[in-house]
Structure formats: C-alpha cells, structure tokens
C-alpha cells in the first residue's frame, strides 16, 4: 500500500508530498497524520505541496480536515509552497482553505509554526529528550 512518509522534527511533523495524489493516498495521509499527531503530541504540522500539480476539491477538503482535526488536538497546520497555477485554480473552484495557514516555503512555514505555537523560547528544553524519528508502520 502506498504511503506518504511523515517526518518528525522536534515538536513538529513534516510531510513532503512528492507524488501525484489520488483519493486513497490522500485519505491514508489524513489518517496517518492524525494518528501521528496524537501519538507524538506534536504542536504543529507542516505540509509541503510544492511538488503537487493538482489540488482538487477532495484534496482541498483533506487539507482542511487535517487542519481542523489537528487544531482540536492543539496542533497548528501550515501548508507551504503552493504553486501559482494551483492557487488560481483553487480560487476559481471556490475553495479558499479557510482555517489553514499557508507560507511560501518550508523555512517560512517553520517560522510561522514557531510563531503560532510560542515555542521559540521553550523549544530547547522540549527538544532534548527526543531524537527525530521516521514514521513507518
């Protein structure tokens, strides 16, 4: 079964989507991410979609779902690197991803997450205990 790898980076989870998504794959991502947020108590989720050429209403809904579900578990979601053509298409489609934070690239997305979760000052103490690990189950 195809899965998209989820990386843990300190208090955040990092997902880079490098393949063309079909519905099942997107649904798996939603399930895996939410399970992972719950397991690790992550404070933020960063989804990099710079390599994604198509975001349709289903995929948009999954992104919105991830954001809402994470928020209930006290984690912020930021979607980074959306291509201009994808953004224009989503707006035309009528999907504005309310409630999802966006940033231009991974670096700015990380800054935003630190900003949103007030972790900049306390970050070092939390980081010490855990080594980053890959998620593959």
């Amino acid at each position, binding site marked *: 079964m195809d899965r998209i790898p989820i990386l843990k980076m300190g208090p955040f989870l990092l997902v880079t989507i490098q393949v*063309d998504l*079909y*519905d*099942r794959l997107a649904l798996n991502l939603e399930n895996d991410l939410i399970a992972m947020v719950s397991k690790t108590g992550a404070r933020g989720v960063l989804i990099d979609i710079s390599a994604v*050429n*198509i*975001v*349709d*209403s*289903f995929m*948009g*809904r999954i992104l919105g779902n991830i954001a809402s579900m994470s928020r209930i578990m006290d984690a912020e979601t930021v979607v980074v690197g959306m*291509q*201009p*053509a*994808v953004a*224009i*298409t989503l707006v*035309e*489609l*009528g*999907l504005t991803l309310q409630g999802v934070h966006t940033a231009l690239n991974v670096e700015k997305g990380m800054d935003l997450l630190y900003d949103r979760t007030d972790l900049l000052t306390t970050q070092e103490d939390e980081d010490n205990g855990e080594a980053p690990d890959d998620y593959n189950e």
Partner: protein
Amino acid sequence: MITMSKDTMQIVREQDVVPFRNRVRELAVKIGMSLVNQTKLITAASELVRNMLKYANGGKITLEIVNKNGQNGIRLIFADEGPGIENIPQAMQDGFSTGKSLGLGLPGTKRLVNEFDIKSVVGSGTTVTVTHWKNGR
C-alpha cells in the same frame, strides 16, 4: 468545431485516475496550453472522474483535440451508465451534494473550463462534456 484527434479511456478503478490525468496533461502540452489553463483543465477532469467513480463505478472518457475558428482546444467527454442525476439545476448549485463532499464538484468544474454541458437520464447514465481552449477563453 472540428475534431483533430480522438482517444478513449476506460475508468474502472481509482488508480486509473493518475494515468488519465497524465494523458490530459500530455494533450494540453501538445497544443501549447499555458500552465494555469492546463491546471484548470486537469483539476476539472479530476473532479469529473471522481464523480464518475463515486456515483457510477466508472465509465468511458473520450479525449479529443478540437479546433474552432483556428483555435485549438481539448474536449473531454465523460460518459457513465450510473443512476443519473434527477435534478441537474440543483446539482449545479454551489454547496449541494448528495454524498459527503463539499458540493463544489460540478459548479466548480463549470467555472474552471470554457464550455460545460451536462446531460443525464435517470436510470441510464450521465454524460458531461467539457471543452477548454488553448488560451483559456
């Protein structure tokens, strides 16, 4: 409108969606469609193919390169033998859905392409025809 090339694809499983989207992209690149218009067309196609899989367990798609008044475009015909749509004006409204989707599929798709036509007979199937011109108008 003159048809310059014609090709058909059968869609039966969700995995067929990715090769179909690639095929649409190939055709769009072939006629020199800009990236934004390519993305709009493929997103629209992606919405329609999902509907076809969800409500009719698949169907047949005809992909054509067409020409009108010297301008090239792509026409996609989605024909299924599903239950059909009872109330088309209602299905074309933003936010209406019989399934659990956002209800942006049909109306959003119509906004993404230049020409949109839907015909449906309850009990025997639905045919959706979309056309998108090279320069998007």
